[in-house]
């Protein structure tokens, strides 16, 4: 077992204890309080999904909100159909849609809905990834293309009012029935459902980062060309991590709809997508646990501060992001790593990964040695 894996497992255990026992105890096992926290946990999944592609493979996906929205709408469509009973969903009537559009029909089934919430985002993510990575697009262009896709996708969703509910989104949803359990989102049980999903997603993320697949992705992140000369099909590796990341975002979106009980096109907005980047950066994009914690902390802060400073909150979030990028580019995870290292032995500073360069800087200077 490597040292990295050892630390990650310890972090996982501590995190699990806090989420499973600490937080509910702090909130007095009160379902209403816990519902807010469940929202943060759901967002933790989309943040860790970004950490997998951005931190793990160097692919900054600014379209993460699009795949998040797909999952969110998939769940909302199922619950809307359930709420409408056998009749046409109300907003379709308002938009003169004569009968249920074909795309809605499969969402009568919960099983199909859950699958679609994972597979549709994965498929769409895979499609974009295939075009980008076969053409060897890299770096900032990945961010630009994925952002452009997000903007276009949100426009389409708003435009197709008869199918998607347009600007209003999908509201008036029925509660989910899971194996005969009618899910009350203000119950402790629901909190544990979301917490369980997050733990599962983190475990999956940890497995991926510690597999040889994760190692090859880190190699690709650093030098894609070199990795090709070892016989790895770089485009396929990048496409697969993009798909997995998109599926996790869809999963997160499904849970988010459950928590808030509606789906809105604002879930697919540029600002939401950038918020995911901020959570991930604050927590630390090198670690899936840290990225999830970043999402929880920033949203917790937002929950507390936006009550007090309704107008200024966005500005404060921006300032936090700028400060993080300037002073702790590897996020809280990097900061803790550095502190730990300084405390344990200050003398061997240069032997630690923490002094590696951040963001997109390649070790250009060091290459001039020869």
């Amino acid at each position, binding site marked *: 077992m*490597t*040292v990295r894996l050892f630390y990650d497992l310890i972090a996982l255990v501590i995190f699990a204890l806090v989420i499973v026992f600490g937080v509910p105890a702090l909130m007095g096992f009160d379902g209403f309080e816990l519902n807010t926290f469940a929202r943060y946990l759901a967002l933790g999944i989309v943040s860790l999904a970004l950490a997998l592609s951005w931190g793990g493979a160097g692919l900054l996906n600014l379209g993460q909100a699009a795949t998040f929205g797909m999952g969110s709408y998939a769940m909302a469509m199922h619950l809307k159909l359930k709420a409408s009973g056998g009749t046409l969903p109300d907003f379709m009537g308002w938009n003169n849609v004569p009968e249920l559009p074909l795309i809605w029909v499969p969402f009568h089934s919960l099983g199909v809905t859950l699958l679609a919430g994972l597979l549709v985002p994965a498929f769409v993510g895979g499609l974009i990834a295939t075009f980008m990575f076969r053409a060897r697009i890299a770096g900032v262009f990945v961010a630009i293309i994925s952002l452009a896709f997000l903007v276009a996708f949100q426009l389409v969703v708003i435009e197709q009012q008869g199918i998607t509910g347009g600007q209003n989104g999908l509201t008036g949803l029925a509660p989910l029935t899971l194996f005969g359990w009618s899910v009350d989102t203000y119950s402790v049980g629901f909190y544990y459902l979301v917490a369980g999903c997050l733990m599962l997603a983190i475990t999956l993320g940890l497995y*991926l980062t*510690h*597999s*040889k*697949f*994760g*190692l*090859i992705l*880190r*190699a690709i992140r*650093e*030098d894609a*060309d*070199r*990795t*090709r*000369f*070892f*016989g*790895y*099909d*770089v485009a*396929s*590796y990048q496409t*697969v991590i993009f798909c997995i990341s998109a599926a996790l975002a869809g999963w997160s979106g499904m849970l988010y709809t459950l928590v808030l009980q509606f789906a809105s096109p604002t879930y697919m907005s540029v600002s939401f997508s950038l918020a995911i980047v901020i959570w991930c950066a604050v927590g630390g994009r090198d670690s899936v646990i840290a990225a999830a914690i970043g999402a929880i902390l920033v949203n917790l802060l937002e929950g507390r501060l936006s009550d007090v400073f309704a107008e200024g909150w966005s500005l404060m979030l921006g300032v936090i992001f700028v400060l993080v990028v300037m002073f702790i580019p590897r996020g809280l995870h990097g900061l803790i790593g550095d502190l730990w290292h300084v405390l344990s032995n200050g003398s061997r500073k*240069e*032997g630690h*990964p923490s002094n*590696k360069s951040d963001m997109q800087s390649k*070790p250009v200077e*060091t*290459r001039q*040695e*020869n």
Partner: protein
Amino acid sequence: MAQLQINDLHVDFGGLRAVDGLSFNVTEGEILCLLGPNGAGKSTTLDLICGKIQPTSGSIRFEGTDISQLLEFRRARLGIGRKFQIPSVYKELTVVENLSVARSRRPGIWHALTRFSLSDGRAVTSILERIGMEAKATDLAGNLSHGETQWLEIAMLIVQDSSLILMDEPTAGMTIQETERTAEIFRTLSSSHTLIVVEHDMSFVRTVADRIVVMNRGAMLAEGTIEEIETNEDVKTAYLGH
């Protein structure tokens, strides 16, 4: 039959003919040294063989199959390994991680998904012993000295276990002792690998080369053993001018 057959290879870079009608063969298990003045097209030739650049015309056959149109990772899978002029190890990965990446006998995604990152540990450790770097196994490659970086990259090529290895100035920046050890390693490598080496250090070439191809202006100027090359009039002219 020759392992690698290069036939009438041309490549243009916007009007500049970097390689112009180059043909030569490489037989299995030999160490071929490519010599030539700066700009003769030696590195470009290696780039063409490993797929970093595509030829304008001509063919490259490796073990009987035409590879001149294949993508570089497919050529790597067929058994062509490359060491670059600038040592290119992964500076943000540790030494063992570098070697694990290089151990790419099964480069597929499924295989990678079902293995832990250092599952190749044992195979990798024996290589570390061979190059004398066991103590540095968990160091970041970015913290190695220049010589150690060169060693690591050579070790990565050994782990990759390609049947044909292309080396671009492997001894650049090495001390005399390091160069001698590299020559030793190359000799042992040639029992199971074919090597094409671009090198300026003539004493190194003298120790390792089975055969030498001298290039000038993108074409072959002379070919033969070290003695034949050293007495060749054309070669003298190309190097010294008139």
